[in-house]
């Protein structure tokens, strides 16, 4: 049982690290870019985050995974760990 994140990396980043082609495909997709560019952003300590759900800050890998979940949910079956 995990009782803490093993390092300072999100589960989404770990999941995408194992699927670099998928990450690149999503980032290159015009639909994803259009969707992402409409999201509100904030900069905290030099890093850009997307405001999701009104009060949650997500980084680029996290919105990539959100996009995959919205558009190709089957790819996420089996979890993000």
């Amino acid at each position, binding site marked *: *049982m*995990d*009782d*803490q*994140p093993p*390092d*300072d*990396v*999100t*589960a989404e980043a770990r999941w995408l690290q194992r699927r670099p082609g998928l990450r690149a495909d999503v980032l290159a997709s015009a639909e994803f870019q259009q969707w992402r560019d409409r999201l*509100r*952003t*904030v900069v*905290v*300590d030099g890093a850009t985050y997307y*405001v*999701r*759900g*009104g*009060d*949650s*800050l997500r980084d680029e890998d996290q919105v990539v995974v*959100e996009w995959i*979940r*919205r558009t190709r949910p089957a790819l*996420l079956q089996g*979890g*993000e*760990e």
Partner: protein
Amino acid sequence: MDTTMRSVEALDEGYFDLLKDKLKRVEVDGETFWRAESDYLLDEDELFVYSQQRAAADAVQQARRMTEQRGFGSSTAPGLATADARERGLVGILRGGRIVRWKPGTVLTYCVLRTTFPEDDRYEEVVAHMTQATADWEGTCGVDFAHVPAADQSDDVRPGGVVFPVRHIDAGGAFIAAAFFPHDPPSRRRVLIDPSYFTQGTFDRTGVMRHELGHVLGFRHEHIRSGAPPVCPDEDLGDTLDLTDYDPQSVMHYFCGGVGRPELAITALDRTGSRSVYGPPLDDFTEVSP
């Protein structure tokens, strides 16, 4: 959607005009938006849809009041979604099929970074709100928060000795406050407060902190469920677990679609849901050492 369509389909055109008049108007890149639910910008068409959904929610509530006064059993207005549709209060997070929570015995230490606040009054206000909001959660379920005042003076935005800092940041109104979840990376554990926290008039400020601390404890928004009014913002539902029935009054529910409460108080269903993850308040026990 054009104006002709609107007048044909409108449930209550007057409500649309009223909201146009009442809500704050914001110009972004030459386009006009209206600010609703404290942190959503709606263009004119979106505002129209929103006004119709609000009018529908009001009609449901009015029907409910009338049937209650008359002693009738049902309060569902035909063709309108009910605000109290029974779905399965709190929504938890799953990772690897297990509920995400802080490890038992964890003391959620925090500081309120004084140097990030433009004025001492605001810092002191947030300290007071955090004291109350953490006490409210500690009285609800088995969690333990502790303010570490010595760390309040730190110049480091990630001070050592605390699980998370609370800090003021000018996010341009992108949020009133923002929080994190237990499984977020340690560097992302922070509660951020925008200047609008102090100027918004919709929500009780201690209630906002109760809501943000709900996220810190691992609870997602209540209004992302299928039973919530459609005007409520949707979110990625991946890896979530319904812990109780849908609760339109939940501390984790935004003020949207005519439901939610500006007090952001912890409800009985919030208590049930949070206890299913963290157990009863720690003060309920007499601890005996082996």
